């Protein structure tokens, strides 16, 4: 009898402790922040951030320029400005191979390729793309083979092209979607897209011809997913632009928690717009309305 009671107590304590434990397993610890470039020119509403092995390239949207920071001890150093005449309003940046960067310009709504030194290397020129031939990118992602996944809001598809723009394949948007704001590709080649209006995330396995629902019913935790990222453990991060937070999903799509909050002080967010992971797992966030870049160690 006593044994049974003890078993029950043990069971209940484990069950009760589970949610708290789950909530405590992940922590977002602010490790660094960048407000200015090396010449003390303040950032102004930066919307894009791209992480490569040794550097973080920031689309300093409000200033119509880029700033390249070097990474040191989970923080950003230097901050060298570079401007590209063809890109006057950089909205989103993604790192490609060998230090190159892809950038989406708000004004032209074209994706440009920038060389490692920051020079303009031409627009992403789509070749042999099936109808519709009009491509309107809202975002893009790059895989480890340097193939580009273009979130084409006009063609209602993810268009996969090689680094030169040559058509490889396409994955149509799922039915009854709201509006997709971002695409991510993980190390395995899984493609993720975030539906900002319906608070859903879809996934397409490598080579798949259609998206499958990965996570749904996130409305309670998420207002407007503007960006999606995947870490090395397969966990999915959604940036909530309108409610200034990060929503973490497990590799199976399960909701793991809502992190960070709205505010102006260090560590808080105000309308974040893009994030990326450095090689050592630091999460870098373009904190747009706070005009800064923030870094977090996800523990």
């Amino acid at each position, binding site marked *: 009898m006593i044994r049974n009671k003890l078993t029950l107590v043990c069971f209940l304590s484990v069950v009760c402790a589970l949610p708290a434990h789950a909530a405590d397993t992940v922590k977002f610890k602010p490790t660094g922040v960048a407000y200015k470039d090396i010449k003390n020119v303040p950032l102004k509403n930066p919307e894009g951030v791209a992480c490569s092995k040794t550097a973080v390239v920031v689309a300093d949207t409000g200033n119509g320029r880029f700033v390249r920071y070097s990474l040191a001890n989970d923080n950003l150093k230097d901050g060298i400005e570079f401007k590209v005449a063809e890109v006057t*309003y950089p909205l989103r940046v993604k790192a490609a191979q060998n230090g190159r960067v892809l950038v989406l310009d708000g004004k032209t709504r074209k994706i440009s390729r920038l060389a490692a030194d920051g020079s303009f290397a031409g627009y992403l020129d789509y070749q042999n793309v099936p109808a519709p031939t009009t491509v309107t990118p809202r975002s893009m992602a790059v895989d480890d083979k340097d193939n580009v996944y273009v979130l084409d809001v006009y063609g209602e598809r993810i268009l996969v092209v090689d680094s030169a723009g040559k058509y490889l394949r396409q994955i149509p948007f799922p039915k009854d979607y709201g509006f997709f704001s971002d695409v991510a590709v993980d190390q395995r080649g899984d493609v993720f897209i975030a539906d900002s209006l319906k608070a859903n995330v879809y996934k397409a396995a490598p080579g798949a011809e259609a998206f499958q629902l990965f996570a749904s019913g996130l409305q309670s935790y998420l207002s407007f997913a503007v960006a999606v990222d995947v870490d090395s453990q397969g966990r999915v991060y959604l940036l909530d632009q309108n409610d200034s937070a990060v929503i973490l999903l497990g590799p199976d799509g399960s909701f793991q928690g809502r992190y960070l909050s709205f505010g*102006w002080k260090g560590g808080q967010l105000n*309308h974040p717009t893009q994030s990326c992971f450095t090689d050592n797992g630091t999460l870098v966030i373009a904190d*747009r309305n*706070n005009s800064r870049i923030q870094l977090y160690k996800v523990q």
Partner: protein
Amino acid sequence: MRVRSISLLLAGVILIAWAQSLFAAGNEQQFKLKPGANGKLCLKCHNSFQEKMTRKYVHTPLKNNECTGCHNAHTSAHGKLLTADADKVCATCHQSMVSSKAKSVHKVVAEGGCLKCHDPHSSAYKGNLVKEGKTLCFSCHKPLGDKLAKVKYRHSPVEKDCLICHQPHASDDGPFLLKNDVTKLCVGCHKTDKPIFIKKHMGYPVASARCTGCHDPHGSDNLGLLLKNVHSPVSKRMCNQCHEDANSATPLKTRKEGMTLCRGCHNDMFNKTFDKNRMHWPLVTKEGCLGCHNPHASNDKGLLRKSMAQLCGSCHSDSMKRIKKNVSKHEPVVEGRCTECHDPHSSDNLALTKKASDYDLCTTCHDWGQHSTHPIGDKVRDPRNKNLSLGCASCHNAHGTEYKKMLYYPTTTEMCLQCHEQLKR
């Protein structure tokens, strides 16, 4: 053989009736009920019901003197000694008002609000309705009733009875409780092969088109019940400005695809829109202009598909949800005047606002900016974040908050102490 069957049936009915009377008598004996205890006795005290029972239409239980059909004579956990909650008691008998295939359901029916339309005891109107015909409908649908009282032209069924087109409870066949899909319902009366119909529609085969894209099914100030605002080519009957000729193989096909067609006339607007840094993304999707605008006619300004609040809210539902919860709300937001502050097409500014600085934007309406105020402007740094200057949005949320004066914090003190930390006690 037939006579034998009828005899058997008759015998059965008599047997059931006899058994029922025995059962009732048994009940009365068991509980020592006085005769008429199920209702007739009630009327001795509730004598106002004598008048109710003289009305033309009396609810069957009352007519049969069976008050206990709905009420418990002794006690009840529900109001008015009802045998179930007021929103459920009707369904104990009337279970089949909404079928499982219903495409649309009257909101009051779904909420169990039967008594909003029906008198549970008796009425002078058929179906125990509390008012007659459209008078009843317009007691809730008041804006529509008010509008129809003023308009020049009314659809003739509207003059008679809403139930000519609508079902009162639910419809298996159409939206908005319509007795059929919009087009099928319309062409039931308006014969599309009549020369006058063909002439009015410039020879275009509109028999399968959605009539409510151009016409107001209730009433309008425009001839032909056209919606309040009509796209210029439609009002000039120049359909072929956008569509291929009526006698072509594909008459309803547009001359150009998507926004390229619209650009043909609205070129200046397009040039301005596409010259900005930030686009409203739906504009560059396949739907283009038609995502928000009706190309033919609309009751809303700018040929919007819905009222601005509904239209913007159909995508920005998260904002609308927050706004509903807010205690303090910005007036233009409440009234659905989103374009007071935002440009719906494009802008050089964040959130597609019409001005770059929130100070400039706010002071277009709020003249306090011309008087003394807390130091704000480009030169005043925000103590919480050195990259920000102080503006209206440093303390107020432009849409509203759950606190007074659209402040981010519950009290003014808490708000001020965000920056003036040295004053904290």
